[in-house]
């Protein structure tokens, strides 16, 4: 397969989630089939970010959620052969996907709120304006959604173009796609992109439960999230998971010149929405499928060249149905001459990593191509018409499609090409 010096390649992956730190540890969990049965949410509440950072003092100014993001960036820095002198600071960039502020960021005000209660026990907002002045001066700063962008840029000495997306579950994917565009336009030479979030806390789990999006927890159940499953035993809903994942992107020629290990080629990406408003998605997956086809067309590849699909597969019934319908529209009519691509899911093991979801998968693509088949815990029901094995290695089937979808009817995809060994 021809390789061009100006094509974009992934040269680093940094990832942290509940129970695993680093890509290798995540791959091992998948290989072992380490399903967390009946977990309400995959929390990183006991995660010690400071152990992974060269400058743990950064953590004093940020939230626990930010700390997870910074720890994943530190992993990427460590494993991705990053060096401070590889690229000029103005030619380096960071693109992040983050959640909005957590209500738990308000905890430093609790004491002040209690102190502001009036004789009837209600919080006197006027008095709170006074009592709050005893709170930590930097309380507001910890709630900023762009803290990881700020401190991560310092870590990577990245002074070039940047952004931070608060687009829910698509945030990390948007960050990677925008970063790739900057590289393509020669506006950057090196860019780190991905997302992070921590939604396992009580308010978000309560909120998503009220919205009907979370997997209902039954005490007798031994099942975890069940994407695409049908039948009486199947239950719909997602499992929220804390985590962070970032990738490093650069141009092949420069990466090769500096001796960086190339993990995969970034081919393209696309986004779309159903335009139906909050919490509404098209069950037929029309916009979703058209986005995939448009992205493949722009990249100059055919659906039959996709060997691996890493699906969103959140477990939310309506969204899974939308996704399968979209995939059938794209891949359903390829005919018997083509081997079906493998359809893999990571949500049984890692839950829905929200802002980081779809980024860990980018890092897993090279592992899966090398492995040749999906670990059992990643398989989708074969009745869907997809395979559990990757098609035999041919130049014509060397691409992976990584999908992301949100219950808001918003979609994203990223296409990678396997790296010739």
């Amino acid at each position, binding site marked *: 397969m021809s390789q061009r010096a100006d094509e974009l390649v992934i040269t680093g992956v940094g990832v942290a989630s509940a129970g695993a730190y680093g890509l290798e540890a995540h791959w091992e969990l998948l290989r072992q089939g380490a399903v967390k049965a009946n977990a309400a949410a995959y929390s990183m509440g006991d995660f010690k970010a400071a152990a992974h950072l060269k400058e743990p003092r950064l953590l004093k100014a940020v939230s626990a959620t930010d700390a997870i993001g910074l720890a994943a960036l530190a992993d990427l820095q460590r494993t991705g052969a990053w060096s401070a002198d590889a690229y000029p*600071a*103005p030619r380096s960039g*960071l693109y992040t996907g*983050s959640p*909005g*502020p957590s*209500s738990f960021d*308000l905890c430093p*005000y*609790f004491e002040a*709120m*209690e102190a502001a209660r009036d004789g009837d026990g*209600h919080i006197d*907002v*006027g008095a*709170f*304006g*006074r009592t*709050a*002045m005893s*709170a*930590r001066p*930097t*309380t*507001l700063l910890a*709630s*900023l*959604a*762009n803290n990881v*962008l*700020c401190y991560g*840029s310092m870590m990577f000495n*990245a*002074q070039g*173009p*940047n*952004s*931070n*997306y608060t687009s*829910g579950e698509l945030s990390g994917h948007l960050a990677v796609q925008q970063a790739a565009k900057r590289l393509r336009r020669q506006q950057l030479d090196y860019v780190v992109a991905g997302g992070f979030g921590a939604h396992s806390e009580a*308010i*978000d*789990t*309560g*909120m998503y*439960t*009220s*919205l009907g999006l979370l997997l209902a927890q039954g005490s007798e159940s031994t099942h975890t999230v069940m994407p695409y499953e049908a039948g009486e035993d199947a239950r719909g809903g997602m499992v929220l998971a804390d985590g962070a994942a970032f990738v490093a992107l650069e141009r092949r020629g420069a990466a090769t010149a500096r001796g960086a290990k190339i993990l995969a080629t970034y081919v393209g990406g696309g*986004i*779309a*929405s159903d*335009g*139906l*408003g*909050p*919490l509404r998605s098209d069950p037929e997956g029309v916009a979703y499928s*058209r986005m995939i086809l448009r992205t493949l067309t722009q990249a100059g590849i055919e659906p039959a060249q996709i060997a691996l699909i890493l699906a969103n597969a959140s477990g939310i019934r309506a969204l899974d149905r939308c996704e399968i319908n979209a995939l059938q529209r794209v891949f359903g009519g390829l005919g018997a001459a083509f081997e079906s691509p493998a359809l893999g899911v990571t949500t049984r093991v890692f839950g829905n990593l929200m802002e980081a979801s779809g980024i860990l998968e980018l890092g897993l693509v090279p592992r899966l191509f090398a492995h040749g088949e999906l670990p059992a815990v990643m398989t989708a029901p074969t009745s869907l018409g997809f395979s559990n094995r990757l098609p035999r290695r041919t130049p014509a089937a060397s691409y992976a499609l990584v999908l992301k979808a949100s219950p*808001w009817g*918003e979609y*994203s995809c990223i296409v990678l090409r396997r790296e010739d060994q």
Partner: protein
Amino acid sequence: MPHDPLRPNKRRVVVTGIGAVSALGSNLNDTWNGILEGRSPAAAVTHFDASQAPCKIAYEVTDFVLPAGLISDRERRFLNTAMGYGVKAVAEAMEQAALLPGQVDPERLAVCLGMGLCGADVDWCERIFLPKKYTDPSLDEHIRFNPEQLASVVARLVGAKGGNTTIHTACASSGQALGEAYEMIAYGEADVVVTGGADSMINSFSMVGFDLLGAMSKRNDAPQQASRPFDAGRDGFVMGEGACMLVFEDYALAQARGAKILAEICGYGVTESTYRITDLHPEGRGPVEAMQMALDDGGTAAAKVGYINAHGTSTQINDRVEALSIAKVFGTGPVAPKVSSTKSMTGHMIAAAGAMELAICINALRFQVLPPSINVFQQDPACPVALTNAVATPTELSFALSNSIGFGGSNTALVARRWL
């Protein structure tokens, strides 16, 4: 001529609609007239009881009514106050753009917004958070504190299927959203993008948060004169709120459908200061490069820029470093552009500031007038820029630039060109 003659690999991007909600008025016209009058509507805070807080003043949107029929009751539950402003501003911008169904492929119509933190309020904390009612069914209302809700509603409102993007980089949020919207069209990814920002931090948590940082003015006895960018006596910013939305469009499409073009966007720059979370690098590292990048992007000579709408928050550090940065890029001689910060009239609209201030640049170009610099009683000699006059002044303008500088180190600059 669909492509920029100076940048043949890029399409030309024009503005065909603008809508605004600010303390000066709930539409662009009222806001602009307030600017021309040099009016400061700052006053004592009424949105909550700020009587015992250090800063008790703000630029509040008053008498705001979301027109009936724009959104459903169901959608309203997903939106907070600022998002309501955003919906109104989108409706105004789309009405001006007069984009009819069928004129743009929905898959080529996208939404790209800069949004504020949208955090919870004291009332919610008292009802739900402090008593730990984490299984309360009303917790679904918490979704309105998630910033991406507005983009979803806007996409439904305008029929966009080209993807929704929400950006938060503090005070640079909507400047960054506009920049990315401009690039989506310039590089052929979309034909029309509804872009802008919305924010309201006039609530107790946000105000005390900025108070604790020492960033807000304490001139409670003179609210209308408290925001005084580049004045020697400035002592902090005054909070504003509102929204500003713009319709960015591929020039070829706008021309083909006979749209009225308001201005052309011809340059975007974005950088990271990598210095401190709240402070600017003393030599302007970041803003300098962002402005230069925006000029280079459109091939615009610095000498052609006649007006700069500065970020100009009225804090000591921002105004001094930004002024030095402007001087570095544009010089200080007689040909240096005129500078003003309209935050003295709108307040600091935080995530919506960049969009509002580019809209003001566009109106300055359209109507050939320099917005006034109010509340400058004695210009700080450490701020070596040529401020606009105290009253709106007719002039000849071809290019204008808008700066945004955010906590967290993100800096943006956008260049607009007069449309003749």
